């Protein structure tokens, strides 16, 4: 079987197929040109200098998508922290400060990555964290705040996961995305522990089935798809005779969301 032939036959029918499906779209014009790198923290300058000419429009588009999500999270936590009365104690506030610090760092990092690669970072949107009235007390009711926080973190994890494949043409950007992705997962784990400890939801640090553990059905799209028990055609429940139940099988793997799915989730929070 000659796969080279099959792919060439596909190309005859649709000459654009390789351009559409390959992340290495050659549509960038001036992204490879020399751009002065202003003072960058630590090693960022040298990292993204190497990326010139390898950071295609597709990669920059992914970075801007990530930046939008980081703007959302950063603004959310920064706003919450302005209301000291929201938090029951200093430990809770400290955890949210830790998370906010990371999200602010992610915003700065992604803006630098995009600019030094010759792209333009998207502007910060105006946000409505009540989601048009779905969460009216998000910044005054601790339970609501943590529910929205959990949803943002779990969604962020799934969003980065869904984009990793689009970053394979640039090792540095892919690695950085993975390094942000795992931090968001640490955040998600901690927020879920906070909700459980406060009796706000029966959730574990990991996602069980497609259960949000949140009363509002508005967040369900962030959890749909997490119930799968098969990976690459391999069933996980009871695998090889091991006593792995359905809950554990769903918890052991987090699932991606597409960009479209993520945008549908976050759009209600954008004015």
């Amino acid at each position: 079987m000659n796969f080279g032939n099959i792919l060439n036959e596909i190309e005859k029918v649709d000459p654009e197929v390789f351009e559409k499906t390959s992340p290495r779209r050659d549509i960038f014009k001036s992204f490879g040109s020399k751009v002065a790198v202003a003072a960058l923290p630590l090693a960022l300058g040298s990292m993204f200098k190497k990326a010139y000419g390898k950071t295609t429009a597709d990669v920059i588009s992914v970075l801007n998508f990530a930046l939008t999500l980081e703007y959302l999270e950063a603004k959310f936590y920064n706003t919450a922290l302005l209301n000291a009365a929201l938090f029951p104690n200093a430990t809770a506030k400290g955890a949210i400060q830790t998370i906010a610090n990371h999200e602010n760092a992610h915003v700065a990092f992604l803006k630098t990555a995009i600019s030094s690669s010759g792209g333009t970072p998207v502007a910060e949107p105006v946000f409505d964290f009540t989601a048009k009235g779905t969460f009216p007390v998000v910044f005054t009711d601790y339970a609501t705040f943590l529910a929205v926080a959990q949803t943002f973190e779990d969604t962020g994890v799934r969003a980065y996961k869904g984009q990793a494949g689009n970053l394979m043409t640039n090792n540095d950007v892919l690695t950085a995305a993975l390094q942000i992705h795992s931090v968001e997962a640490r955040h998600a784990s901690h927020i879920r522990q906070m909700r459980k400890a406060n009796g706000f939801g029966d959730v574990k640090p990991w996602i069980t089935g497609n259960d949000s553990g949140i009363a509002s059905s508005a967040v369900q799209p962030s959890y749909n798809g997490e119930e799968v028990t098969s990976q690459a055609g391999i069933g996980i429940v009871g695998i090889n005779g091991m006593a792995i139940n359905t809950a554990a099988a769903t918890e052991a793997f987090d699932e991606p969301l597409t960009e479209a799915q993520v945008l549908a989730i976050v759009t209600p929070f954008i004015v």
Partner: protein
Amino acid sequence: MKVENEIMTSPQEDLGSGVSRRRFFTVAGIGLLAASTIASCKKDDGPIITDNSIDLGSGDIGILNYAYALEQLEAAFYTKVAASFYTGATATEMARLTEIRDHEIAHREFFKNALGSKAIPALEVNFAAINFTNRDSVLSTAKAFEDLGVSAYNGAGKLIVSADYLLLAGKIVSVEARHAAYIRDIISNGSFADSTTVDVNGLDMAKMPNDVLAIAGTYLKSKVTAKNLPTS
């Protein structure tokens, strides 16, 4: 070894007509995962077993075996933890640690099945340095394993050629990070993502295989080498 499904040529060659390996994997989207085992892409990318060492192999198979090795280590550790919990373990801790055990077993068995005839054998572990009756000993080891796993997957991502494998690794690494955060929090609440693992840019650690195996190796009787893994 017999390869049932020889639909792939060596990844080192073009697939004829100038079609590059990476383009093939991107466009075909069929991935390398058949229903239960990975079809052989390159006949000699599997593990190299000698009397006193196990080499992980090369290419994506090598990386999957690398992940399989780490999951074997974690699964063996948590199996011992859950078989006899440390003194003072709360009911909640026992429940969570049992779930973590199950997740690691699920990861391990998934890789075992996915690799099929290309899988490394079962590794012999060395947990002599761990006192399983002592909470600090168990949890500090758990923290080290989880953080190590996160850094290993984060570092290996760029070495993977197949988008399908990258996604699978991605599905696992976030769960390891959830584990890591939980373990850190029961050691010291609030340390889930502190500066010992997250840098000033908000980035988690990423380590290369040789660095990871140097640490993991201290918990293994089996000698595991990564002489043929991709390095970029």
